[in-house]
Protein backbone atom coordinates (compact mmCIF):
# COMPACT_ATOMS: atom_id res chain seq x y z
CA UNK A 1 0.00 0.00 0.00
CA UNK A 2 1.44 3.33 -0.99
CA UNK A 3 1.94 5.90 1.68
CA UNK A 4 -0.21 8.95 1.42
CA UNK A 5 -0.13 12.28 3.13
CA UNK A 6 -3.02 14.57 3.88
CA UNK A 7 -1.83 17.55 5.90
CA UNK A 8 -5.28 19.09 5.83
CA UNK A 9 -6.76 16.00 7.48
CA UNK A 10 -4.11 16.25 10.16
CA UNK A 11 -5.16 19.84 10.83
CA UNK A 12 -8.83 18.84 10.98
CA UNK A 13 -8.13 16.08 13.49
CA UNK A 14 -5.93 18.43 15.50
CA UNK A 15 -8.64 21.09 15.65
CA UNK A 16 -10.18 19.54 18.72
CA UNK A 17 -13.62 18.36 19.81
CA UNK A 18 -15.35 21.37 18.31
CA UNK A 19 -15.17 19.84 14.84
CA UNK A 20 -16.73 16.57 15.93
CA UNK A 21 -19.49 18.38 17.80
CA UNK A 22 -20.33 20.56 14.81
CA UNK A 23 -20.36 17.58 12.47
CA UNK A 24 -22.62 15.66 14.84
CA UNK A 25 -25.09 18.54 14.84
CA UNK A 26 -25.05 18.66 11.07
CA UNK A 27 -25.67 14.93 10.83
CA UNK A 28 -28.73 15.29 13.06
CA UNK A 29 -30.02 18.02 10.77
CA UNK A 30 -29.54 15.78 7.73
CA UNK A 31 -31.37 12.89 9.38
CA UNK A 32 -34.26 15.16 10.31
CA UNK A 33 -34.50 16.48 6.76
CA UNK A 34 -34.53 13.01 5.28
CA UNK A 35 -37.41 12.18 7.58
CA UNK A 36 -39.47 15.13 6.44
CA UNK A 37 -38.80 14.75 2.73
CA UNK A 38 -42.40 15.04 1.69
CA UNK A 39 -42.63 18.57 2.94
CA UNK A 40 -39.52 19.73 1.14
CA UNK A 41 -39.74 18.35 -2.35
CA UNK A 42 -42.68 18.24 -4.67
CA UNK A 43 -45.75 16.39 -3.39
CA UNK A 44 -45.45 12.72 -4.15
CA UNK A 45 -41.86 13.10 -5.22
CA UNK A 46 -39.03 10.77 -4.29
CA UNK A 47 -37.24 10.92 -0.95
CA UNK A 48 -35.21 14.07 -0.55
CA UNK A 49 -31.50 13.61 -1.05
CA UNK A 50 -29.46 16.13 0.88
CA UNK A 51 -26.96 17.90 -1.40
CA UNK A 52 -28.12 16.36 -4.66
CA UNK A 53 -31.70 17.56 -4.81
CA UNK A 54 -31.47 21.18 -3.84
CA UNK A 55 -28.92 22.02 -6.48
CA UNK A 56 -28.56 19.26 -9.08
CA UNK A 57 -26.19 21.41 -11.05
CA UNK A 58 -23.98 21.94 -8.06
CA UNK A 59 -23.99 18.84 -5.97
CA UNK A 60 -20.61 17.63 -7.05
CA UNK A 61 -19.30 21.03 -6.10
CA UNK A 62 -17.31 21.18 -9.28
CA UNK A 63 -17.92 22.72 -12.64
CA UNK A 64 -21.33 24.09 -12.08
CA UNK A 65 -23.26 26.88 -13.70
CA UNK A 66 -24.70 29.73 -11.76
Amino acid at each position, binding site marked *: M*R*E*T*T*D*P*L*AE*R*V*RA*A*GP*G*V*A*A*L*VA*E*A*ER*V*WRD*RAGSAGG*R*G*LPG*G*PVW*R*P*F*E*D*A*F*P*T*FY*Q*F*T*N*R*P*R
Partner: protein
Amino acid sequence: MPSISVEPAEAAVPVSPWTGMRGVAPVPSYVVMQPTTLCNLACDYCYLPERRENHRMPVAVAQAVAQTVNQWAPAVPGFSVVWHGGEPTAAGRTHLGALMAPFQRVEHHLQTNATLLDDPWCEFLREHRVRVGISIDGPPELTGARVDRGGRPAYRLIMRGIEALRRNGIPFSALCVVSQPRPGLAAGLYEFFAGLGCHALGINVEEQEGVNTRSNAQDGAAVAEFWAELTTAWRADPRVELREVEWALRYLGATLDGRADELLPRRLDPIPTIGRSGGVILLSPELAGFSDPRYGDFTSGNVLSTPLSEIVEAATARPAGWIAEYLAGVQACRESCRYFGFCGGAHAANRYFEHGRFDTTVTEHCRNSKIRLLEGVLSHARDH
Protein backbone atom coordinates in the same frame (compact mmCIF):
# COMPACT_ATOMS: atom_id res chain seq x y z
CA MET B 1 -11.30 40.22 16.09
CA PRO B 2 -8.57 37.67 15.34
CA SER B 3 -8.11 37.06 11.66
CA ILE B 4 -8.25 33.54 10.28
CA SER B 5 -5.01 32.13 8.99
CA VAL B 6 -5.45 30.62 5.56
CA GLU B 7 -3.01 27.94 4.50
CA PRO B 8 -1.37 28.51 1.12
CA ALA B 9 -2.98 26.12 -1.32
CA GLU B 10 0.17 25.69 -3.32
CA ALA B 11 2.11 24.24 -0.40
CA ALA B 12 3.63 20.98 -1.48
CA VAL B 13 1.57 17.84 -0.97
CA PRO B 14 4.18 15.09 -0.64
CA VAL B 15 2.03 12.33 -2.13
CA SER B 16 -1.55 12.98 -3.12
CA PRO B 17 -3.94 10.59 -1.40
CA TRP B 18 -6.88 11.47 -3.66
CA THR B 19 -8.18 8.90 -6.10
CA GLY B 20 -11.30 10.65 -7.47
CA MET B 21 -11.78 12.97 -10.43
CA ARG B 22 -9.85 10.92 -12.95
CA GLY B 23 -11.20 11.32 -16.46
CA VAL B 24 -14.73 12.15 -17.54
CA ALA B 25 -17.74 9.86 -17.16
CA PRO B 26 -19.47 8.86 -20.43
CA VAL B 27 -22.94 9.44 -19.00
CA PRO B 28 -23.91 12.62 -17.12
CA SER B 29 -26.39 13.00 -14.28
CA TYR B 30 -27.93 16.10 -15.78
CA VAL B 31 -27.95 18.30 -18.83
CA VAL B 32 -28.22 22.06 -18.95
CA MET B 33 -30.50 23.60 -21.57
CA GLN B 34 -30.46 27.19 -22.79
CA PRO B 35 -34.03 27.86 -23.93
CA THR B 36 -33.20 31.45 -24.79
CA THR B 37 -30.21 33.76 -24.64
CA LEU B 38 -32.45 36.62 -23.55
CA CYS B 39 -32.58 38.04 -20.05
CA ASN B 40 -34.89 40.85 -19.02
CA LEU B 41 -32.40 42.01 -16.38
CA ALA B 42 -28.93 43.52 -16.76
CA CYS B 43 -27.16 42.55 -13.54
CA ASP B 44 -23.79 44.19 -12.97
CA TYR B 45 -21.93 40.90 -12.51
CA CYS B 46 -23.60 38.83 -15.24
CA TYR B 47 -21.25 36.65 -17.31
CA LEU B 48 -23.61 35.88 -20.21
CA PRO B 49 -22.52 37.31 -23.56
CA GLU B 50 -25.84 37.30 -25.48
CA ARG B 51 -28.29 38.27 -22.78
CA ARG B 52 -29.74 41.16 -24.78
CA GLU B 53 -30.45 38.96 -27.82
CA ASN B 54 -33.64 36.96 -28.08
CA HIS B 55 -32.33 33.77 -29.65
CA ARG B 56 -34.73 30.97 -28.71
CA MET B 57 -33.88 27.31 -28.85
CA PRO B 58 -35.79 25.52 -31.64
CA VAL B 59 -37.93 22.59 -30.52
CA ALA B 60 -35.92 20.38 -32.87
CA VAL B 61 -32.89 20.89 -30.61
CA ALA B 62 -34.83 19.72 -27.55
CA GLN B 63 -36.14 16.73 -29.47
CA ALA B 64 -32.62 15.77 -30.47
CA VAL B 65 -31.35 16.09 -26.89
CA ALA B 66 -34.28 14.08 -25.56
CA GLN B 67 -33.50 11.16 -27.86
CA THR B 68 -30.34 10.56 -25.84
CA VAL B 69 -31.55 11.79 -22.45
CA ASN B 70 -34.55 9.47 -22.52
CA GLN B 71 -32.11 6.57 -22.87
CA TRP B 72 -29.84 7.83 -20.09
CA ALA B 73 -32.51 8.80 -17.57
CA PRO B 74 -33.81 5.35 -16.52
CA ALA B 75 -30.32 4.37 -15.40
CA VAL B 76 -29.56 7.57 -13.46
CA PRO B 77 -31.64 8.32 -10.33
CA GLY B 78 -33.00 11.84 -10.45
CA PHE B 79 -31.64 12.59 -13.90
CA SER B 80 -32.19 16.32 -14.28
CA VAL B 81 -32.81 18.67 -17.14
CA VAL B 82 -31.82 22.10 -15.96
CA TRP B 83 -33.31 25.09 -17.77
CA HIS B 84 -30.87 27.92 -17.48
CA GLY B 85 -30.60 31.11 -19.45
CA GLY B 86 -30.47 33.81 -20.28
CA GLU B 87 -33.65 33.97 -18.27
CA PRO B 88 -35.55 30.78 -19.07
CA THR B 89 -38.97 32.27 -18.35
CA ALA B 90 -38.25 34.90 -21.01
CA ALA B 91 -38.77 32.08 -23.52
CA GLY B 92 -42.47 32.09 -22.57
CA ARG B 93 -44.58 29.27 -21.18
CA THR B 94 -45.75 27.97 -24.53
CA HIS B 95 -42.26 27.64 -25.94
CA LEU B 96 -40.71 26.32 -22.74
CA GLY B 97 -43.48 23.72 -22.55
CA ALA B 98 -42.78 22.66 -26.12
CA LEU B 99 -39.09 22.30 -25.28
CA MET B 100 -39.88 20.19 -22.20
CA ALA B 101 -42.38 17.96 -23.95
CA PRO B 102 -39.95 15.47 -25.57
CA PHE B 103 -38.32 14.54 -22.24
CA GLN B 104 -39.50 11.51 -20.30
CA ARG B 105 -38.80 10.39 -16.73
CA VAL B 106 -36.58 13.34 -15.87
CA GLU B 107 -36.66 16.02 -13.18
CA HIS B 108 -37.00 19.50 -14.61
CA HIS B 109 -35.20 22.29 -12.82
CA LEU B 110 -35.47 25.99 -13.55
CA GLN B 111 -33.09 28.71 -12.38
CA THR B 112 -34.88 32.04 -12.67
CA ASN B 113 -34.61 35.67 -11.64
CA ALA B 114 -38.29 35.34 -10.60
CA THR B 115 -39.31 38.69 -12.07
CA LEU B 116 -41.76 37.19 -14.56
CA LEU B 117 -43.33 34.65 -12.22
CA ASP B 118 -47.05 35.00 -11.63
CA ASP B 119 -49.98 32.67 -11.00
CA PRO B 120 -50.08 31.25 -14.54
CA TRP B 121 -46.35 30.56 -14.37
CA CYS B 122 -46.82 28.84 -11.03
CA GLU B 123 -49.50 26.65 -12.58
CA PHE B 124 -47.06 25.79 -15.35
CA LEU B 125 -44.34 24.93 -12.84
CA ARG B 126 -46.71 22.72 -10.88
CA GLU B 127 -48.06 21.01 -13.98
CA HIS B 128 -44.55 20.20 -15.21
CA ARG B 129 -43.31 19.31 -11.72
CA VAL B 130 -40.45 21.78 -12.01
CA ARG B 131 -38.04 22.32 -9.14
CA VAL B 132 -37.42 26.04 -8.87
CA GLY B 133 -34.31 27.97 -7.98
CA ILE B 134 -34.48 31.75 -7.74
CA SER B 135 -31.66 34.27 -7.87
CA ILE B 136 -31.58 37.04 -5.29
CA ASP B 137 -28.70 38.43 -3.31
CA GLY B 138 -30.35 39.31 -0.01
CA PRO B 139 -32.20 42.40 1.23
CA PRO B 140 -32.49 45.42 -1.10
CA GLU B 141 -29.12 46.91 -0.22
CA LEU B 142 -27.39 43.64 -1.13
CA THR B 143 -29.45 42.96 -4.25
CA GLY B 144 -28.50 46.30 -5.77
CA ALA B 145 -26.48 44.70 -8.57
CA ARG B 146 -29.61 43.05 -9.91
CA VAL B 147 -31.14 45.74 -12.09
CA ASP B 148 -33.39 45.94 -15.11
CA ARG B 149 -32.21 47.18 -18.48
CA GLY B 150 -32.91 50.73 -17.42
CA GLY B 151 -30.65 50.33 -14.41
CA ARG B 152 -33.54 50.30 -11.97
CA PRO B 153 -33.37 47.94 -8.97
CA ALA B 154 -35.10 44.63 -9.67
CA TYR B 155 -35.68 43.77 -6.01
CA ARG B 156 -39.38 44.61 -6.00
CA LEU B 157 -40.00 42.57 -9.15
CA ILE B 158 -38.05 39.62 -7.73
CA MET B 159 -40.01 39.70 -4.48
CA ARG B 160 -43.28 39.87 -6.40
CA GLY B 161 -42.33 36.65 -8.18
CA ILE B 162 -41.30 34.99 -4.94
CA GLU B 163 -44.62 35.99 -3.42
CA ALA B 164 -46.34 34.20 -6.32
CA LEU B 165 -44.36 31.05 -5.51
CA ARG B 166 -45.32 31.29 -1.83
CA ARG B 167 -48.96 31.98 -2.66
CA ASN B 168 -49.06 28.88 -4.80
CA GLY B 169 -47.17 26.68 -2.35
CA ILE B 170 -44.26 26.01 -4.69
CA PRO B 171 -41.01 25.25 -2.85
CA PHE B 172 -37.88 27.01 -4.05
CA SER B 173 -34.18 27.21 -3.42
CA ALA B 174 -32.14 30.38 -3.77
CA LEU B 175 -28.82 31.40 -5.22
CA CYS B 176 -27.13 34.46 -3.78
CA VAL B 177 -24.17 36.29 -5.28
CA VAL B 178 -21.94 37.93 -2.68
CA SER B 179 -19.65 40.48 -4.27
CA GLN B 180 -17.70 41.45 -1.15
CA PRO B 181 -17.66 38.75 1.52
CA ARG B 182 -16.61 40.35 4.77
CA PRO B 183 -17.12 40.20 8.51
CA GLY B 184 -20.46 41.46 9.72
CA LEU B 185 -22.39 40.42 6.63
CA ALA B 186 -23.36 36.80 7.14
CA ALA B 187 -25.83 36.90 10.03
CA GLY B 188 -28.21 39.33 8.38
CA LEU B 189 -27.87 37.57 5.04
CA TYR B 190 -28.78 34.19 6.49
CA GLU B 191 -31.66 35.68 8.45
CA PHE B 192 -33.04 37.18 5.24
CA PHE B 193 -33.04 33.86 3.42
CA ALA B 194 -34.45 31.96 6.37
CA GLY B 195 -37.31 34.44 6.40
CA LEU B 196 -37.73 34.25 2.64
CA GLY B 197 -38.89 30.67 2.93
CA CYS B 198 -36.37 29.04 0.61
CA HIS B 199 -35.52 25.47 1.55
CA ALA B 200 -31.93 25.70 0.32
CA LEU B 201 -29.38 28.42 -0.29
CA GLY B 202 -26.25 28.51 -2.41
CA ILE B 203 -23.72 31.29 -1.97
CA ASN B 204 -21.76 32.31 -5.05
CA VAL B 205 -18.92 34.68 -4.31
CA GLU B 206 -18.75 36.90 -7.39
CA GLU B 207 -16.43 35.52 -10.04
CA GLN B 208 -14.35 37.07 -12.77
CA GLU B 209 -15.99 35.27 -15.60
CA GLY B 210 -17.39 35.75 -19.07
CA VAL B 211 -18.17 39.34 -19.81
CA ASN B 212 -17.78 40.20 -16.12
CA THR B 213 -14.11 41.20 -15.99
CA ARG B 214 -14.14 42.68 -12.50
CA SER B 215 -11.37 41.19 -10.40
CA ASN B 216 -12.52 38.74 -7.76
CA ALA B 217 -9.38 39.03 -5.66
CA GLN B 218 -10.47 39.48 -2.05
CA ASP B 219 -8.91 39.85 1.37
CA GLY B 220 -8.45 36.26 2.48
CA ALA B 221 -9.03 36.72 6.18
CA ALA B 222 -12.21 38.72 5.55
CA VAL B 223 -13.63 36.04 3.27
CA ALA B 224 -12.81 33.27 5.74
CA GLU B 225 -14.45 35.26 8.53
CA PHE B 226 -17.56 35.65 6.36
CA TRP B 227 -17.80 31.87 6.01
CA ALA B 228 -17.15 31.39 9.73
CA GLU B 229 -19.94 33.80 10.63
CA LEU B 230 -22.26 32.14 8.12
CA THR B 231 -21.57 28.83 9.84
CA THR B 232 -22.47 30.43 13.17
CA ALA B 233 -25.75 31.71 11.75
CA TRP B 234 -26.67 28.36 10.21
CA ARG B 235 -25.80 26.47 13.38
CA ALA B 236 -28.14 28.65 15.41
CA ASP B 237 -31.05 27.98 13.03
CA PRO B 238 -30.30 25.25 10.46
CA ARG B 239 -33.67 25.37 8.75
CA VAL B 240 -32.13 26.26 5.37
CA GLU B 241 -29.94 23.77 3.53
CA LEU B 242 -26.83 25.89 3.21
CA ARG B 243 -24.93 24.43 0.30
CA GLU B 244 -21.36 25.52 0.83
CA VAL B 245 -21.21 25.28 4.62
CA GLU B 246 -22.92 21.89 4.71
CA TRP B 247 -20.70 20.55 1.98
CA ALA B 248 -17.71 21.60 4.05
CA LEU B 249 -19.22 19.91 7.10
CA ARG B 250 -19.70 16.71 5.15
CA TYR B 251 -16.04 16.83 4.20
CA LEU B 252 -14.93 17.47 7.77
CA GLY B 253 -17.06 14.56 9.00
CA ALA B 254 -15.66 12.23 6.37
CA THR B 255 -12.16 13.35 7.29
CA LEU B 256 -12.71 12.50 10.93
CA ASP B 257 -14.01 9.08 9.84
CA GLY B 258 -11.04 8.50 7.55
CA ARG B 259 -13.19 8.25 4.42
CA ALA B 260 -12.75 11.67 2.87
CA ASP B 261 -11.40 10.15 -0.33
CA GLU B 262 -14.82 8.62 -0.97
CA LEU B 263 -16.49 12.00 -1.41
CA LEU B 264 -15.09 13.09 -4.74
CA PRO B 265 -16.76 11.50 -7.77
CA ARG B 266 -14.58 8.86 -9.36
CA ARG B 267 -14.86 10.68 -12.67
CA LEU B 268 -15.96 14.17 -13.60
CA ASP B 269 -19.56 14.59 -14.67
CA PRO B 270 -19.49 15.74 -18.32
CA ILE B 271 -22.39 18.19 -17.68
CA PRO B 272 -23.46 18.69 -21.29
CA THR B 273 -24.74 22.19 -21.82
CA ILE B 274 -26.83 22.55 -24.94
CA GLY B 275 -26.77 26.04 -26.32
CA ARG B 276 -29.79 27.49 -28.02
CA SER B 277 -28.67 26.34 -31.48
CA GLY B 278 -27.71 22.81 -30.42
CA GLY B 279 -24.01 23.24 -29.75
CA VAL B 280 -22.75 21.03 -26.90
CA ILE B 281 -20.27 22.33 -24.37
CA LEU B 282 -19.01 19.81 -21.86
CA LEU B 283 -17.82 20.35 -18.30
CA SER B 284 -18.31 24.09 -18.12
CA PRO B 285 -21.62 25.76 -18.99
CA GLU B 286 -20.07 29.18 -18.50
CA LEU B 287 -18.08 28.76 -21.72
CA ALA B 288 -21.24 28.76 -23.85
CA GLY B 289 -21.27 31.64 -26.29
CA PHE B 290 -17.54 32.32 -26.14
CA SER B 291 -14.74 31.53 -28.55
CA ASP B 292 -10.97 31.74 -28.49
CA PRO B 293 -8.43 31.55 -31.32
CA ARG B 294 -6.71 28.69 -29.48
CA TYR B 295 -9.78 26.69 -28.43
CA GLY B 296 -12.46 27.60 -30.98
CA ASP B 297 -16.01 27.87 -29.64
CA PHE B 298 -15.46 25.19 -26.96
CA THR B 299 -18.18 22.96 -28.41
CA SER B 300 -17.76 19.23 -28.89
CA GLY B 301 -20.49 18.89 -31.52
CA ASN B 302 -24.06 19.80 -32.36
CA VAL B 303 -27.07 17.66 -31.53
CA LEU B 304 -28.75 18.54 -34.83
CA SER B 305 -26.06 16.62 -36.70
CA THR B 306 -24.78 14.06 -34.17
CA PRO B 307 -26.57 12.24 -31.34
CA LEU B 308 -25.73 13.70 -27.93
CA SER B 309 -24.63 10.27 -26.71
CA GLU B 310 -22.03 10.04 -29.49
CA ILE B 311 -20.77 13.55 -28.81
CA VAL B 312 -20.27 12.83 -25.12
CA GLU B 313 -18.77 9.37 -25.64
CA ALA B 314 -16.26 10.62 -28.20
CA ALA B 315 -15.17 13.61 -26.15
CA THR B 316 -14.80 11.63 -22.94
CA ALA B 317 -13.10 8.59 -24.46
CA ARG B 318 -10.56 10.65 -26.40
CA PRO B 319 -10.23 14.03 -24.69
CA ALA B 320 -8.73 16.65 -26.97
CA GLY B 321 -8.26 20.40 -27.17
CA TRP B 322 -9.29 22.41 -24.16
CA ILE B 323 -10.80 19.35 -22.43
CA ALA B 324 -7.47 17.51 -22.48
CA GLU B 325 -5.75 20.65 -21.20
CA TYR B 326 -8.33 20.93 -18.42
CA LEU B 327 -7.82 17.31 -17.35
CA ALA B 328 -4.10 18.02 -17.14
CA GLY B 329 -5.00 20.96 -14.93
CA VAL B 330 -7.08 18.77 -12.64
CA GLN B 331 -4.14 16.42 -12.30
CA ALA B 332 -1.88 19.37 -11.50
CA CYS B 333 -4.31 20.41 -8.77
CA ARG B 334 -4.26 16.88 -7.38
CA GLU B 335 -0.49 16.94 -7.19
CA SER B 336 -0.05 20.42 -5.79
CA CYS B 337 -3.02 21.48 -3.65
CA ARG B 338 -3.80 20.23 -0.17
CA TYR B 339 -7.45 21.16 -0.63
CA PHE B 340 -7.96 18.89 -3.63
CA GLY B 341 -9.88 16.29 -1.65
CA PHE B 342 -12.47 18.90 -0.77
CA CYS B 343 -12.45 20.79 -4.05
CA GLY B 344 -11.76 18.32 -6.86
CA GLY B 345 -9.80 20.85 -8.84
CA ALA B 346 -10.32 24.41 -10.03
CA HIS B 347 -13.33 24.84 -12.29
CA ALA B 348 -12.64 25.03 -15.99
CA ALA B 349 -14.29 28.41 -16.54
CA ASN B 350 -12.43 30.00 -13.63
CA ARG B 351 -9.11 28.78 -15.00
CA TYR B 352 -9.91 30.12 -18.43
CA PHE B 353 -11.37 33.48 -17.46
CA GLU B 354 -8.77 34.16 -14.78
CA HIS B 355 -5.67 32.63 -16.39
CA GLY B 356 -6.47 32.32 -20.08
CA ARG B 357 -5.86 28.58 -20.17
CA PHE B 358 -7.00 25.36 -18.54
CA ASP B 359 -3.90 23.61 -17.22
CA THR B 360 -3.21 26.08 -14.43
CA THR B 361 -4.14 25.41 -10.83
CA VAL B 362 -5.41 27.62 -8.04
CA THR B 363 -7.77 30.46 -8.96
CA GLU B 364 -9.26 33.32 -7.02
CA HIS B 365 -12.51 31.36 -7.11
CA CYS B 366 -10.70 28.47 -5.43
CA ARG B 367 -9.49 30.82 -2.75
CA ASN B 368 -12.82 32.53 -2.11
CA SER B 369 -15.21 29.61 -2.41
CA LYS B 370 -13.21 26.52 -1.49
CA ILE B 371 -10.12 27.28 0.58
CA ARG B 372 -11.46 30.17 2.65
CA LEU B 373 -14.78 28.38 3.02
CA LEU B 374 -13.18 25.33 4.54
CA GLU B 375 -10.89 27.42 6.70
CA GLY B 376 -13.81 29.56 7.87
CA VAL B 377 -15.92 26.55 8.86
CA LEU B 378 -12.93 25.01 10.57
CA SER B 379 -12.26 28.25 12.41
CA HIS B 380 -15.85 28.34 13.66
CA ALA B 381 -15.52 24.76 14.91
CA ARG B 382 -12.31 25.56 16.75
CA ASP B 383 -13.79 28.62 18.41
CA HIS B 384 -17.15 27.19 19.49
